[in-house]
C-alpha cells in the first residue's frame, strides 16, 4: 500500500459534500485525482477522508450563459473542454489549451476545478482564465460567493478557498467584440510543463489595441498581470513592431523566480518573448473570425 489509511465517501448531493467538508478539517475533495493521488502516495498531506465529488451533477457540464459566456462545472475534464462545441465556439483557445495538457489519460480524468484549486504554478489553465477575466464560483454551507480569477490564486498551492468551501464552477464571460486571445509556453517537449508562459487577450478598435490583458505564469508562484505592459499596449498600434516595443519591457519590474529550470534573468528574457508571441497571436485572432483562436489555426 502506497497510501496511508484513509476514509472515502461518495456523497449523493452537493449539500452532503459541503456538510462533510464543513464538519471535518481532515476532509479533502477528490475530483479527477490526477494530482491528489500522487500527493497521497507521497504522504505529503494528511487527509482523513476523501470526499469523492466527481459524480455530482451540480459540478458537471458546460452551459452557455445568457450573455454568451460559459459556465463550466468544476468537475469538467480537460478532454470535455477540448471536445465541447460550446467552448470551441465561444472560447476556442480554452479548448485548445485543454487539448494540450500532458496526455490523453490525464485529460480524461483531470478537471478544471482541480487544475485551479491545486494552484500549482505549472498548471495550464490559471493564466488563461485570468486573461479571460473568468470568475470562480465558490460554495460552502454558509452560501455562495464569486471571486475574480485574478484574486483566486494566492500562492504556491494556495487559493482564496476558505476551509469548508468548494469551487463549484468557473464562469467565463463572452469575448468582447473585436477581441482575440493568445497563449504561448516555453517547454521542453510538446505538451510538457512550461518554464514560462504568457496568456493574452486584446480588443481591437480598427488598427489600434483598445484594451488588453497580459498574464505571465511561472514568473511568480501565481499568474501575474503585467499591467505596465498592458498600459503600453493599450492605445498603441496593433502592429508587430508596436507589440514588440510594448513587450520589450515585460517583467522588468518583477523578480522572476529562479529554480532548476531557469534563472531569474533567463525567465525575464523569455517572458518578453512569450508575451510578444501571445499578444501577436491575440491580435491575429482578433482579426480572424474565430474567438480566442491561435494565429494560423493549429
Amino acid at each position: 500500500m502506497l497510501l496511508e489509511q484513509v476514509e472515502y465517501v461518495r456523497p449523493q448531493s452537493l449539500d452532503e459534500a459541503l456538510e462533510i467538508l464543513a464538519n471535518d478539517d481532515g476532509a479533502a475533495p477528490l475530483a479527477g485525482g490526477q494530482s491528489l493521488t500522487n500527493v497521497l502516495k507521497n504522504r505529503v498531506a494528511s487527509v482523513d477522508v476523501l470526499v469523492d465529488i466527481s459524480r455530482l451533477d451540480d459540478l458537471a457540464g458546460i452551459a452557455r450563459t445568457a450573455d454568451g459566456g460559459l459556465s463550466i462545472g468544476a468537475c469538467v475534464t480537460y478532454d470535455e473542454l477540448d471536445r465541447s462545441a460550446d467552448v470551441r465556439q465561444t472560447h476556442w483557445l480554452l479548448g485548445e489549451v485543454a487539448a494540450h495538457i500532458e496526455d490523453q489519460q490525464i485529460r480524461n480524468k483531470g478537471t478544471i476545478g482541480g487544475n485551479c484549486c491545486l494552484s500549482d504554478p505549472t498548471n495550464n489553465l490559471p493564466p488563461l482564465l485570468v486573461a479571460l477575466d473568468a470568475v470562480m464560483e465558490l460554495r460552502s454551507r454558509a452560501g455562495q460567493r464569486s471571486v475574480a480569477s485574478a484574486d483566486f490564486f494566492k500562492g504556491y498551492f494556495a487559493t482564496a478557498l476558505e476551509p469548508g468551501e468548494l469551487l463549484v464552477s468557473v464562469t467565463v464571460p463572452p469575448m468582447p467584440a473585436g477581441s482575440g486571445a493568445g497563449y504561448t509556453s516555453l517547454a521542453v517537449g510538446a505538451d510538457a510543463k512550461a518554464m514560462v508562459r504568457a496568456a493574452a487577450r486584446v480588443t481591437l478598435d480598427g488598427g489600434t489595441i483598445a484594451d488588453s490583458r497580459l498574464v505571465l505564469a511561472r514568473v511568480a508562484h501565481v499568474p501575474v498581470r503585467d499591467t505596465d505592459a498592458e498600459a503600453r499596449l493599450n492605445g498603441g498600434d496593433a502592429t508587430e513592431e508596436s507589440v514588440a516595443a510594448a513587450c520589450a519591457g515585460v517583467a522588468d519590474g518583477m523578480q522572476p523566480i529562479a529554480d532548476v529550470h531557469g534563472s531569474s534573468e533567463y525567465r525575464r528574457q523569455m517572458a518578453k518573448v512569450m508575451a510578444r508571441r501571445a499578444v501577436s497571436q491575440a491580435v491575429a485572432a482578433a482579426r480572424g473570425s474565430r474567438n480566442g483562436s491561435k494565429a494560423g489555426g493549429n
Partner: protein
Amino acid sequence: MGERGTSHAVTVEVNGEKVSRIVAARQLLVHFLRDTLGLTGTHIGCDTGNCGACSVIVNGKLVKSCMILAPQVDGATIETVEGLADGDSLSPLQESFHEHHALQCGYCTPGMLMSATYLLRQNPDPTDEEIRRGIRGNICRCTGYVNIVKAIRAASREQASGGRPVPAAAGEEV
C-alpha cells in the same frame, strides 16, 4: 448519504465479467486489478502516473490505473489488456504490434495497446502526429517508438481497408 469508511464494497465489470469485492479505500485501481483480481497484464512501471504502463479503459475512457483509487470505480466497466484478444485470436492491434516488432522488452506493451485501442476508437484514421500524441502518456524505455507508431498506423490502415476493426468499447453497439 454516501457510506463513509476505510473499506468499501465495489462491483465492477472487468473484460465482460462482473466481480464484487471489498476494497480498502486506499487501494489503487492497479493493485485491485493485479493483486485482488489477479489480472497481472496491467503493469506498474512508475507508481507516479508518468509511465502509462498501467493504462486501462474505464467506462470508455483511457486512464492510468495507478492514479485512481479502487472505490472510485464502483459500478464501472473496465477493459484491461487481457480483454483485447478473443481466446487465442489476437486483436488486430496486437497482431500488428507482433508483425512490426513494436515491442522489445514488452513492459510498456499492455499500456501502449490500451492507449492505441482508445486512439483508434476515437480516431480510426490518425496521422502519425496524432498517433504520437495518442501515446504521449506511455513511455517505452527501450525507446522503440518508431515501430510502435508503425504498428498502430498499419492497424488503422488494415481496419480502413476492410480488415478486422478494433473492437468497440464494452457495452457499445457493434
